[in-house]
């Protein structure tokens, strides 16, 4: 007979494949919140008095994180500002922005929307349509990621934020590990983790409180909590190598439900060694063009713009 392992309620909403644990709706919500709060404590992600900038896309991960971080804000442990980036992805991003705004408003959390267009003069759609793959264009997510990091870092400094929190989940992290490993991109591997280590005080520390929560459980959480969430896929998502790796890991997980955890655990054990051997502790200066921190003359974002100018 199926019943909740914690309270005996016969209406269970999850039977965890990795552990066999069965939980009812209330116990699942509570245990997931506790797990995230415990990880925040265990990895030292937040300190009392932090001002946290949350990247709020309106998708399930960031909406769940808003829900949990808001509980810390309500207890006056942290200050919170939600920032939604409008990359300019027509037919997709608009709804996400509305949903993000509604969530922030409902909780009384300060919310800002910042657009690629306003900082870079062009939308992601513009960037993609101007550069085609034959001429060496990278996939959309590469540009999107570089520009998004640039904006978060800039806005965090403007807002005096001490931490940038993002909704990366267990599936995302496992994908990053396997993807960079398969590509032989050891430099990138040394930067994967639950909390970024600052190389410059111009970089705000980034934290990933949902890093050990599987994507499926995040989805279940937001449905169980009846949160307002943007459940849609980005039209550019399938372009990426990440998507291929993601499907592969999900397929493997059906028969081997613990592989995402073991990939993450194994990686975290190896990371200090990787860092010691491969991390290029370059002296961090500032980008000649925009003043953002970088190890090179120009930051990545400005390098892309420079390439396009000379085309």
């Amino acid at each position, binding site marked *: 007979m199926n019943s909740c392992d914690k309270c005996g309620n016969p209406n269970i909403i999850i039977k965890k494949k990795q552990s066999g644990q069965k939980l009812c*709706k209330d116990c699942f919500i509570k245990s997931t919140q506790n797990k995230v709060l415990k990880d925040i404590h265990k990895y030292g992600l937040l300190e009392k008095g932090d001002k946290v900038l949350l990247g709020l896309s309106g998708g399930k991960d960031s909406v769940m994180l808003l829900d949990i971080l808001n509980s810390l804000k309500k207890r006056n442990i942290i200050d919170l500002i939600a920032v939604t980036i409008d990359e300019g992805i027509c037919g997709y991003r608009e709804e996400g922005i509305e949903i993000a705004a509604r969530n922030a408003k409902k909780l009384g959390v300060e919310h800002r929307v910042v657009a690629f267009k306003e900082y870079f003069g062009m939308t992601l759609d513009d960037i993609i349509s101007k550069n085609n793959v034959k001429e060496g264009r990278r996939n959309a997510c590469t540009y999107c990621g570089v520009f998004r990091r640039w904006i978060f870092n800039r806005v965090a400094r403007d807002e005096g934020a001490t931490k940038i929190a993002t909704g990366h989940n267990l599936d995302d992290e496992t994908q990053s590990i396997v993807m960079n490993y398969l590509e032989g991109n050891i430099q990138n591997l040394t930067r994967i983790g639950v909390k970024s280590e600052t190389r410059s005080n111009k970089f705000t520390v980034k934290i990933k409180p949902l890093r050990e929560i599987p994507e499926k459980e995040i989805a279940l959480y937001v449905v169980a909590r009846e949160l307002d969430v943007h459940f849609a896929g980005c039209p550019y*998502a*399938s372009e990426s190598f990440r*998507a291929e790796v*993601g499907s592969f890991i*999900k397929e493997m*997980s059906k028969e081997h439900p613990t592989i995402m955890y073991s990939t993450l655990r194994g990686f975290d054990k190896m990371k200090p060694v990787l860092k010691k051997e491969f991390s290029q502790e370059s002296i961090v200066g500032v980008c000649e063009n925009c003043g953002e921190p970088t190890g090179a003359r120009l930051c990545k974002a400005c390098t892309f713009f420079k390439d396009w100018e000379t085309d």
Partner: protein
Amino acid sequence: MKIKLIIGEKEELIEISENKTVKNLLDIVDIASETVVVKKNDCIVIDEELVEDGDLIEIIQVIYGG
């Protein structure tokens, strides 16, 4: 037996045989159970839940892409 099935905006009455689970139903409509949350009569249920005559089953697509 008949059930009402909601997938996104789409709503339909379908005929299925007795003793089917949510998982069987997902296989019938060809949706991967890893990508959805399923509600039966407005409550979230697990894959092995039995579907009964007159049930309202809602399939919520929650995971896209990879």
